[in-house]
């Protein structure tokens, strides 16, 4: 038995969903605007994209230890797989925000 009653009435994101959304928003924002520079370079050093899926970006998890997995570039591998929309080509800020909410929050239809 989970806390289904609270989950239903919450109508908002759970802490897990919120944290995933916040990190992915920062990831997209960093990649689009190259700000902050050092975080951008860290992510870029471990990212790749596939020709058959233009506009999507994937990130390796290169960590050796548990603490190392906390580094931003290592935490993004699963998030970038979850983001199904194309955000690198011509998407406006609003489209990205709504798209990310759709990907991460259950309550957005």
């Amino acid at each position, binding site marked *: *038995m*989970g*806390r289904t*009653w*609270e989950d239903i*009435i*919450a109508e*908002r994101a*759970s*802490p*897990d969903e*919120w*944290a995933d959304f*916040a*990190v992915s928003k*920062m990831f997209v*924002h*960093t990649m689009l*605007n190259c*700000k*902050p*520079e*050092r*975080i951008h370079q*860290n992510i870029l050093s471990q990212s790749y994209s596939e020709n058959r899926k233009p506009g999507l970006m994937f990130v390796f998890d290169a*960590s*050796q*230890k*548990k*603490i*190392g*997995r*906390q*580094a*931003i*570039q*290592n*935490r993004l591998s*699963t998030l970038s797989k979850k983001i199904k929309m194309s955000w690198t080509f011509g998407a406006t800020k609003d489209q990205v925000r709504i798209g990310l909410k759709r990907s991460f929050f259950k309550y957005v239809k």
Partner: protein
Amino acid sequence: MLFLKCPLQYTDHFKPKRSCGPDDIPLIVLKDSLQVMAYYIKKLFNKLALGDKIPSTWKYAKIKPIFKKGDPKLVENYRPISNLNSISKLFERCVLNRLPSDAKTDGVNQHGFKTGHSTVTAGLDIQSHLAIMSDRGEKSIIYSVDLSAAFDVIRPAMFYKKMVNKMDIPTLNCLNDFLTNRKAQVEVDGHSSVFFSFKAGCPQGSTLGPKIFNMYCSDLSSALKHGYVVSYADDTYVIVSDKDEKNLLKKANSTIKDHVGWLKKNGMICNIAKTEAMYIGEKTDCDIKLDVDGVTIVPSDTMKVLGIQFDNKLSWEHQVVSCTKKCLKLLHGLKHLRKFLNLKQMKQVTTSFLLSVLMYGSEIWYHRHLSFHLKQRIRSAHYRALRMIYGKNLGRHYSRKSLS
């Protein structure tokens, strides 16, 4: 070089405030009358930017001390906020929009007063670096330096010297002129002092102030040989890493020495009482002590970085415990509001008060490797708020399945 477009486009940034500087013209009046005056103001601003000196009356400020915290009888516990002339503020805004905003002028390490940056990005930069170093098997020492009266020690001559190769001369002259020959008067409870002049410092409350501060501190990372510098306004955090503990201690002490030297060279005063340090890595017999300008500092197990509690294992236990404790206190207070608010209002109030505390910096510390009992603690605070709003208590327990 500068040239300024129509100043009308910058008025959106101004809040319709009624407070005014020494010219007694509130911003709201300037904002409303700018449609008529825009042409003449633009002409004047362009003249100033092409080499004319800024009028001396534009450099006058009315300082209102704002109480920070502590003993109200001590002068140090007040922040000197300057009320400047409204037209000078408009000029500053026009200049600010034409200044370059790149790593060369602002510094890569600075996260304060920059678009796309925040305390969260600064924290993320620190956490990411610590995690990478730990992944490589290196031990790290992170120390913070607190500056006292950081804005009040900016020297115009030093600023000119630092920026002379980084930006064009007319713009630099304009900024230098903005910093020199400034005068101010202090106003408390309707009583004001005579105007006095000061040789160093940038007025707090000016539009250009934060940008000038960033430019002034942009060469810090190049002054330190070993450290990885992350700054948020006047809060600076330096990370030194090495595989060998003795080498690490040597590196850390030399970095601190360089750092203190840089501060002294730039006329800044380090508040040693507020300087903190933390050691990250396996503990051994080696005694780790840092020497900050003759004062010994022993690294602790936890450290507060921009409102987030870092611990030496990056387990985030202290952060989760402190934020959930704050939430419970808040919930206790909010309970009393339930009688007076309807469901929608109650939801709004709880969300705005609670989520900002509970999920502040979640990008840094809330990740999938956070331990189960900490996640459970966060969820518990979350659901407690929901139960308070809806007034129900089902008394169910969590299961590991429901959280996965």
